[in-house]
Protein backbone atom coordinates (compact mmCIF):
# COMPACT_ATOMS: atom_id res chain seq x y z
CA UNK A 1 0.00 0.00 0.00
CA UNK A 2 2.78 2.42 0.88
CA UNK A 3 4.38 3.69 -2.24
CA UNK A 4 7.15 6.18 -2.66
CA UNK A 5 6.30 9.54 -4.20
CA UNK A 6 8.06 8.50 -7.38
CA UNK A 7 6.10 5.23 -7.56
CA UNK A 8 2.83 7.09 -7.12
CA UNK A 9 3.72 9.59 -9.81
CA UNK A 10 4.70 6.79 -12.20
CA UNK A 11 1.50 4.92 -11.47
CA UNK A 12 -0.65 7.96 -12.26
CA UNK A 13 1.32 8.69 -15.42
CA UNK A 14 0.85 5.09 -16.62
CA UNK A 15 -2.88 5.20 -15.85
CA UNK A 16 -3.20 8.40 -17.87
CA UNK A 17 -1.68 6.55 -20.81
CA UNK A 18 -4.36 3.87 -20.48
CA UNK A 19 -2.07 1.11 -19.17
CA UNK A 20 -4.46 -1.59 -17.91
CA UNK A 21 -1.85 -3.05 -15.55
CA UNK A 22 -1.41 0.35 -13.94
CA UNK A 23 -5.16 0.56 -13.32
CA UNK A 24 -5.00 -2.87 -11.72
CA UNK A 25 -2.08 -1.82 -9.51
CA UNK A 26 -4.03 1.25 -8.44
CA UNK A 27 -7.05 -0.90 -7.66
CA UNK A 28 -4.97 -3.44 -5.70
CA UNK A 29 -3.30 -0.69 -3.68
CA UNK A 30 -6.55 0.96 -2.57
CA UNK A 31 -9.36 -1.61 -2.88
CA UNK A 32 -9.20 -2.97 0.65
CA UNK A 33 -9.08 0.37 2.46
CA UNK A 34 -11.73 1.88 0.19
CA UNK A 35 -14.00 -1.13 0.55
CA UNK A 36 -13.81 -0.75 4.30
CA UNK A 37 -14.90 2.88 3.99
CA UNK A 38 -17.87 1.76 1.86
CA UNK A 39 -18.77 -0.97 4.35
CA UNK A 40 -18.71 1.44 7.27
CA UNK A 41 -20.68 4.12 5.45
CA UNK A 42 -23.24 1.92 3.65
CA UNK A 43 -23.52 -0.64 6.44
CA UNK A 44 -24.39 -3.33 3.90
CA UNK A 45 -21.95 -5.54 1.96
CA UNK A 46 -23.84 -5.61 -1.38
CA UNK A 47 -24.32 -1.81 -1.34
CA UNK A 48 -20.66 -1.36 -0.41
CA UNK A 49 -19.56 -3.41 -3.45
CA UNK A 50 -21.81 -1.42 -5.80
CA UNK A 51 -20.60 1.90 -4.44
CA UNK A 52 -16.96 0.79 -4.59
CA UNK A 53 -17.37 -0.24 -8.22
CA UNK A 54 -19.02 3.06 -9.15
CA UNK A 55 -16.33 5.02 -7.32
CA UNK A 56 -13.44 3.20 -9.01
CA UNK A 57 -15.10 3.68 -12.39
CA UNK A 58 -15.11 7.40 -11.64
CA UNK A 59 -11.46 7.26 -10.50
CA UNK A 60 -10.41 5.54 -13.74
CA UNK A 61 -12.41 7.94 -15.86
CA UNK A 62 -11.09 11.08 -14.19
CA UNK A 63 -7.48 10.15 -13.46
CA UNK A 64 -6.35 12.63 -16.12
CA UNK A 65 -7.88 15.43 -14.06
CA UNK A 66 -5.71 14.69 -11.02
CA UNK A 67 -3.27 17.59 -11.08
CA UNK A 68 -0.94 16.66 -8.24
CA UNK A 69 -0.02 12.98 -8.44
CA UNK A 70 1.12 12.96 -4.81
CA UNK A 71 -2.43 13.56 -3.62
CA UNK A 72 -3.67 10.35 -5.29
CA UNK A 73 -4.55 8.65 -2.02
CA UNK A 74 -6.64 11.56 -0.65
CA UNK A 75 -8.23 12.07 -4.08
CA UNK A 76 -9.32 8.43 -4.40
CA UNK A 77 -10.62 8.48 -0.82
CA UNK A 78 -12.64 11.64 -1.41
CA UNK A 79 -14.27 10.18 -4.52
CA UNK A 80 -15.18 7.02 -2.58
CA UNK A 81 -16.58 9.02 0.36
CA UNK A 82 -18.59 11.24 -1.99
CA UNK A 83 -20.04 8.18 -3.71
CA UNK A 84 -21.01 6.75 -0.32
CA UNK A 85 -22.71 10.04 0.58
CA UNK A 86 -24.51 10.01 -2.76
CA UNK A 87 -25.71 6.51 -2.06
CA UNK A 88 -27.03 7.54 1.35
CA UNK A 89 -28.61 10.66 -0.16
CA UNK A 90 -30.54 8.48 -2.57
CA UNK A 91 -31.75 6.52 0.41
CA UNK A 92 -33.09 9.81 1.78
CA UNK A 93 -30.78 10.40 4.67
CA UNK A 94 -31.20 13.91 6.00
CA UNK A 95 -28.88 15.95 8.15
CA UNK A 96 -31.02 18.45 9.91
CA UNK A 97 -29.76 21.75 11.19
CA UNK A 98 -29.21 21.66 14.90
CA UNK A 99 -31.83 24.36 15.48
CA UNK A 100 -34.52 22.08 14.11
CA UNK A 101 -33.48 18.94 15.92
CA UNK A 102 -35.45 18.20 19.01
CA UNK A 103 -32.92 17.81 21.76
CA UNK A 104 -33.36 14.50 23.50
CA UNK A 105 -32.98 14.10 27.17
CA UNK A 106 -29.27 13.50 27.51
CA UNK A 107 -28.25 11.06 30.12
CA UNK A 108 -24.76 10.56 31.24
CA UNK A 109 -23.58 7.02 30.93
CA UNK A 110 -21.06 5.61 33.27
CA UNK A 111 -18.83 4.04 30.71
CA UNK A 112 -16.20 2.83 33.11
CA UNK A 113 -18.30 -0.21 33.94
CA UNK A 114 -18.71 -1.32 30.36
CA UNK A 115 -15.95 -3.11 28.54
CA UNK A 116 -15.08 -1.84 25.10
CA UNK A 117 -14.16 -4.45 22.53
CA UNK A 118 -13.70 -4.04 18.79
CA UNK A 119 -16.69 -6.32 18.22
CA UNK A 120 -19.11 -4.47 20.48
CA UNK A 121 -18.03 -1.00 19.32
CA UNK A 122 -18.37 -2.10 15.69
CA UNK A 123 -21.75 -3.61 16.28
CA UNK A 124 -22.98 -0.53 18.17
CA UNK A 125 -21.84 1.79 15.35
CA UNK A 126 -23.65 -0.35 12.79
CA UNK A 127 -26.86 0.09 14.79
CA UNK A 128 -26.66 3.90 14.77
CA UNK A 129 -29.15 5.88 12.69
CA UNK A 130 -27.54 6.71 9.33
CA UNK A 131 -26.96 10.40 10.02
CA UNK A 132 -25.13 9.73 13.28
CA UNK A 133 -23.19 6.83 11.82
CA UNK A 134 -22.01 8.92 8.89
CA UNK A 135 -20.73 11.80 11.00
CA UNK A 136 -19.04 9.45 13.47
CA UNK A 137 -17.36 7.43 10.72
CA UNK A 138 -16.16 10.49 8.84
CA UNK A 139 -14.63 11.97 11.98
CA UNK A 140 -13.22 8.96 13.83
CA UNK A 141 -12.36 6.56 11.02
CA UNK A 142 -11.82 8.71 7.95
CA UNK A 143 -10.25 11.49 10.01
CA UNK A 144 -11.94 14.46 8.41
CA UNK A 145 -12.33 17.62 10.49
CA UNK A 146 -15.75 18.85 11.63
CA UNK A 147 -15.42 21.68 9.14
CA UNK A 148 -14.71 19.30 6.25
CA UNK A 149 -17.62 17.07 7.31
CA UNK A 150 -19.93 20.09 7.48
CA UNK A 151 -18.98 21.08 3.94
CA UNK A 152 -19.38 17.54 2.60
CA UNK A 153 -22.85 17.18 4.08
CA UNK A 154 -24.06 20.73 3.49
CA UNK A 155 -24.65 21.38 7.19
CA UNK A 156 -23.15 23.86 9.63
CA UNK A 157 -20.00 23.03 11.58
CA UNK A 158 -21.91 23.23 14.87
CA UNK A 159 -24.48 20.70 13.58
CA UNK A 160 -21.65 18.37 12.55
CA UNK A 161 -20.14 18.62 16.05
CA UNK A 162 -23.48 18.11 17.81
CA UNK A 163 -24.34 15.10 15.65
CA UNK A 164 -20.94 13.61 16.46
CA UNK A 165 -21.38 14.09 20.23
CA UNK A 166 -24.82 12.48 20.08
CA UNK A 167 -23.54 9.64 17.94
CA UNK A 168 -20.91 8.82 20.57
CA UNK A 169 -23.49 9.04 23.31
CA UNK A 170 -25.70 6.63 21.42
CA UNK A 171 -22.82 4.18 20.88
CA UNK A 172 -22.18 4.13 24.61
CA UNK A 173 -25.89 3.65 25.29
CA UNK A 174 -26.12 0.68 22.90
CA UNK A 175 -23.04 -0.97 24.44
CA UNK A 176 -24.42 -0.43 27.93
CA UNK A 177 -27.87 -1.83 27.05
CA UNK A 178 -26.36 -4.93 25.51
CA UNK A 179 -24.19 -5.64 28.50
CA UNK A 180 -27.12 -5.24 30.85
CA UNK A 181 -29.07 -7.80 28.82
CA UNK A 182 -26.13 -10.19 28.83
Amino acid at each position, binding site marked *: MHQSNQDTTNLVVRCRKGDVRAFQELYNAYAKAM*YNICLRMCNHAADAEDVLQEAFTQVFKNIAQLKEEQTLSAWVKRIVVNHCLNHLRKKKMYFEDVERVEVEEEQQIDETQHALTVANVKSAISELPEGYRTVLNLYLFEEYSHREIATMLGISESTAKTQF*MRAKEKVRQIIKDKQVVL
Partner: protein
Amino acid sequence: MMQQDDRLESFIRQNRAAFEDDGPPPGLWAALEKEIPQQPTTNVVKMFTKHWLKVAVVVLLVLNGVLLTFFFQHKTKKEESINAVALIPELQEAQNYYTSQIEDKLQQIKAIPADKIGLDSTARRELELKNDTYKLLEKELANNPGNERIRAALIRYYQLKLELLDRILEEQERFDSLEKQEPYVKTL
Protein backbone atom coordinates in the same frame (compact mmCIF):
# COMPACT_ATOMS: atom_id res chain seq x y z
CA MET B 1 -17.90 13.53 30.47
CA MET B 2 -14.69 14.52 28.74
CA GLN B 3 -12.89 11.44 30.05
CA GLN B 4 -15.66 9.20 28.71
CA ASP B 5 -15.44 10.83 25.29
CA ASP B 6 -11.74 10.28 25.22
CA ARG B 7 -12.12 6.64 26.20
CA LEU B 8 -14.30 5.65 23.23
CA GLU B 9 -12.32 7.80 20.81
CA SER B 10 -8.94 6.62 22.00
CA PHE B 11 -10.09 2.99 22.00
CA ILE B 12 -11.02 3.31 18.33
CA ARG B 13 -7.80 5.13 17.46
CA GLN B 14 -5.61 2.63 19.31
CA ASN B 15 -7.32 -0.36 17.72
CA ARG B 16 -7.88 1.23 14.33
CA ALA B 17 -6.40 -1.69 12.34
CA ALA B 18 -8.58 -4.25 14.11
CA PHE B 19 -11.67 -2.46 12.81
CA GLU B 20 -10.75 -3.26 9.20
CA ASP B 21 -12.46 -6.14 7.37
CA ASP B 22 -11.12 -8.06 4.39
CA GLY B 23 -11.07 -6.47 0.95
CA PRO B 24 -13.83 -6.66 -1.66
CA PRO B 25 -14.73 -9.98 -3.36
CA PRO B 26 -12.29 -11.00 -6.11
CA GLY B 27 -14.82 -10.68 -8.93
CA LEU B 28 -14.95 -6.92 -8.62
CA TRP B 29 -11.77 -6.25 -10.57
CA ALA B 30 -13.06 -8.27 -13.55
CA ALA B 31 -16.14 -6.02 -13.68
CA LEU B 32 -14.04 -2.89 -13.34
CA GLU B 33 -11.56 -3.88 -16.02
CA LYS B 34 -14.31 -3.47 -18.61
CA GLU B 35 -14.79 0.11 -17.48
CA ILE B 36 -11.22 1.22 -18.13
CA PRO B 37 -11.39 4.13 -20.54
CA GLN B 38 -10.01 3.34 -23.97
CA GLN B 39 -7.35 5.60 -25.36
CA PRO B 40 -8.91 7.67 -28.13
CA THR B 41 -5.64 8.15 -30.06
CA THR B 42 -6.38 5.78 -32.92
CA ASN B 43 -9.85 7.21 -33.50
CA VAL B 44 -8.55 10.75 -33.58
CA VAL B 45 -5.78 9.76 -35.98
CA LYS B 46 -8.30 8.02 -38.25
CA MET B 47 -10.61 11.01 -38.09
CA PHE B 48 -7.78 13.35 -38.95
CA THR B 49 -6.80 11.46 -42.05
CA LYS B 50 -10.39 11.27 -43.23
CA HIS B 51 -11.74 14.72 -42.42
CA TRP B 52 -8.63 16.76 -41.77
CA LEU B 53 -10.05 20.02 -43.06
CA LYS B 54 -13.23 19.85 -40.99
CA VAL B 55 -11.24 18.91 -37.89
CA ALA B 56 -8.81 21.76 -38.41
CA VAL B 57 -11.65 24.28 -38.66
CA VAL B 58 -13.34 22.94 -35.53
CA VAL B 59 -10.07 22.97 -33.57
CA LEU B 60 -9.45 26.57 -34.62
CA LEU B 61 -12.95 27.65 -33.62
CA VAL B 62 -12.71 25.95 -30.24
CA LEU B 63 -9.27 27.43 -29.64
CA ASN B 64 -10.57 30.90 -30.50
CA GLY B 65 -13.46 30.45 -28.11
CA VAL B 66 -11.21 29.29 -25.30
CA LEU B 67 -8.74 32.13 -25.84
CA LEU B 68 -11.47 34.76 -25.95
CA THR B 69 -13.12 33.39 -22.78
CA PHE B 70 -9.76 33.28 -21.04
CA PHE B 71 -8.94 36.83 -22.08
CA PHE B 72 -12.28 38.30 -20.98
CA GLN B 73 -12.26 36.41 -17.71
CA HIS B 74 -8.91 37.85 -16.82
CA LYS B 75 -9.88 41.33 -17.85
CA THR B 76 -13.23 41.55 -16.12
CA LYS B 77 -13.16 39.30 -13.07
CA LYS B 78 -11.73 40.56 -9.84
CA GLU B 79 -8.92 38.53 -8.38
CA GLU B 80 -10.74 37.90 -5.11
CA SER B 81 -13.83 36.46 -6.77
CA ILE B 82 -11.69 33.94 -8.65
CA ASN B 83 -9.90 32.94 -5.49
CA ALA B 84 -12.92 32.78 -3.18
CA VAL B 85 -13.52 29.08 -3.77
CA ALA B 86 -9.85 28.19 -3.99
CA LEU B 87 -9.38 29.46 -0.43
CA ILE B 88 -11.52 26.61 0.91
CA PRO B 89 -9.99 23.38 -0.42
CA GLU B 90 -12.72 21.01 0.78
CA LEU B 91 -15.35 23.17 -0.94
CA GLN B 92 -13.32 23.11 -4.11
CA GLU B 93 -13.00 19.33 -3.94
CA ALA B 94 -16.74 18.97 -3.37
CA GLN B 95 -17.37 21.30 -6.30
CA ASN B 96 -15.07 19.28 -8.54
CA TYR B 97 -16.83 16.09 -7.56
CA TYR B 98 -20.38 17.37 -8.02
CA THR B 99 -19.53 19.26 -11.22
CA SER B 100 -18.18 16.13 -12.86
CA GLN B 101 -21.16 14.05 -11.70
CA ILE B 102 -23.66 16.67 -12.89
CA GLU B 103 -21.95 17.17 -16.23
CA ASP B 104 -21.91 13.41 -16.70
CA LYS B 105 -25.66 13.12 -16.09
CA LEU B 106 -26.38 16.19 -18.25
CA GLN B 107 -24.50 14.55 -21.10
CA GLN B 108 -26.62 11.43 -20.70
CA ILE B 109 -29.80 13.53 -20.75
CA LYS B 110 -28.65 15.54 -23.76
CA ALA B 111 -28.07 12.30 -25.63
CA ILE B 112 -31.78 11.50 -25.36
CA PRO B 113 -33.80 12.97 -28.27
CA ALA B 114 -35.83 16.06 -27.26
CA ASP B 115 -39.20 14.58 -28.27
CA LYS B 116 -38.53 11.47 -26.22
CA ILE B 117 -37.56 13.17 -22.98
CA GLY B 118 -40.24 15.88 -23.24
CA LEU B 119 -38.28 18.77 -21.70
CA ASP B 120 -38.83 22.24 -23.15
CA SER B 121 -36.03 24.76 -23.61
CA THR B 122 -36.74 26.55 -20.29
CA ALA B 123 -36.52 23.27 -18.38
CA ARG B 124 -33.33 22.36 -20.19
CA ARG B 125 -31.83 25.74 -19.34
CA GLU B 126 -32.76 25.27 -15.70
CA LEU B 127 -31.08 21.86 -15.67
CA GLU B 128 -27.76 23.32 -16.77
CA LEU B 129 -25.12 23.38 -14.04
CA LYS B 130 -24.72 27.12 -13.94
CA ASN B 131 -28.29 28.36 -13.91
CA ASP B 132 -29.45 31.64 -12.30
CA THR B 133 -29.53 30.13 -8.80
CA TYR B 134 -25.98 28.90 -9.15
CA LYS B 135 -24.78 32.27 -10.41
CA LEU B 136 -26.44 34.03 -7.50
CA LEU B 137 -24.86 31.67 -4.96
CA GLU B 138 -21.48 31.92 -6.63
CA LYS B 139 -21.67 35.73 -6.51
CA GLU B 140 -22.71 35.70 -2.85
CA LEU B 141 -19.89 33.31 -2.00
CA ALA B 142 -17.36 35.48 -3.81
CA ASN B 143 -18.49 38.47 -1.71
CA ASN B 144 -18.53 36.45 1.55
CA PRO B 145 -16.04 33.59 1.12
CA GLY B 146 -16.12 32.58 4.79
CA ASN B 147 -19.91 32.37 5.08
CA GLU B 148 -20.85 28.87 6.20
CA ARG B 149 -24.52 29.18 5.23
CA ILE B 150 -23.73 30.16 1.65
CA ARG B 151 -21.26 27.27 1.41
CA ALA B 152 -23.89 24.87 2.73
CA ALA B 153 -26.45 26.30 0.30
CA LEU B 154 -24.09 25.74 -2.62
CA ILE B 155 -23.54 22.10 -1.63
CA ARG B 156 -27.32 21.66 -1.22
CA TYR B 157 -27.75 23.15 -4.68
CA TYR B 158 -25.39 20.54 -6.14
CA GLN B 159 -27.06 17.70 -4.25
CA LEU B 160 -30.55 18.73 -5.32
CA LYS B 161 -29.47 19.13 -8.92
CA LEU B 162 -27.86 15.71 -8.91
CA GLU B 163 -30.98 14.22 -7.37
CA LEU B 164 -33.17 15.84 -10.01
CA LEU B 165 -30.97 14.58 -12.84
CA ASP B 166 -30.94 11.09 -11.32
CA ARG B 167 -34.73 11.13 -11.21
CA ILE B 168 -35.06 12.21 -14.82
CA LEU B 169 -32.70 9.45 -15.92
CA GLU B 170 -34.46 6.84 -13.76
CA GLU B 171 -37.83 7.88 -15.20
CA GLN B 172 -36.46 7.71 -18.72
CA GLU B 173 -35.00 4.26 -18.03
CA ARG B 174 -38.34 3.07 -16.68
CA PHE B 175 -40.12 4.51 -19.71
CA ASP B 176 -37.63 2.83 -22.07
CA SER B 177 -38.05 -0.56 -20.45
CA LEU B 178 -41.85 -0.21 -20.64
CA GLU B 179 -41.55 0.68 -24.31
CA LYS B 180 -39.45 -2.43 -24.91
CA GLN B 181 -42.03 -4.58 -23.19
CA GLU B 182 -44.91 -3.10 -25.16
CA PRO B 183 -44.60 -5.12 -28.39
CA TYR B 184 -44.65 -8.27 -26.32
CA VAL B 185 -47.72 -7.11 -24.39
CA LYS B 186 -49.50 -6.35 -27.66
CA THR B 187 -49.02 -9.89 -28.89
CA LEU B 188 -50.75 -11.31 -25.81
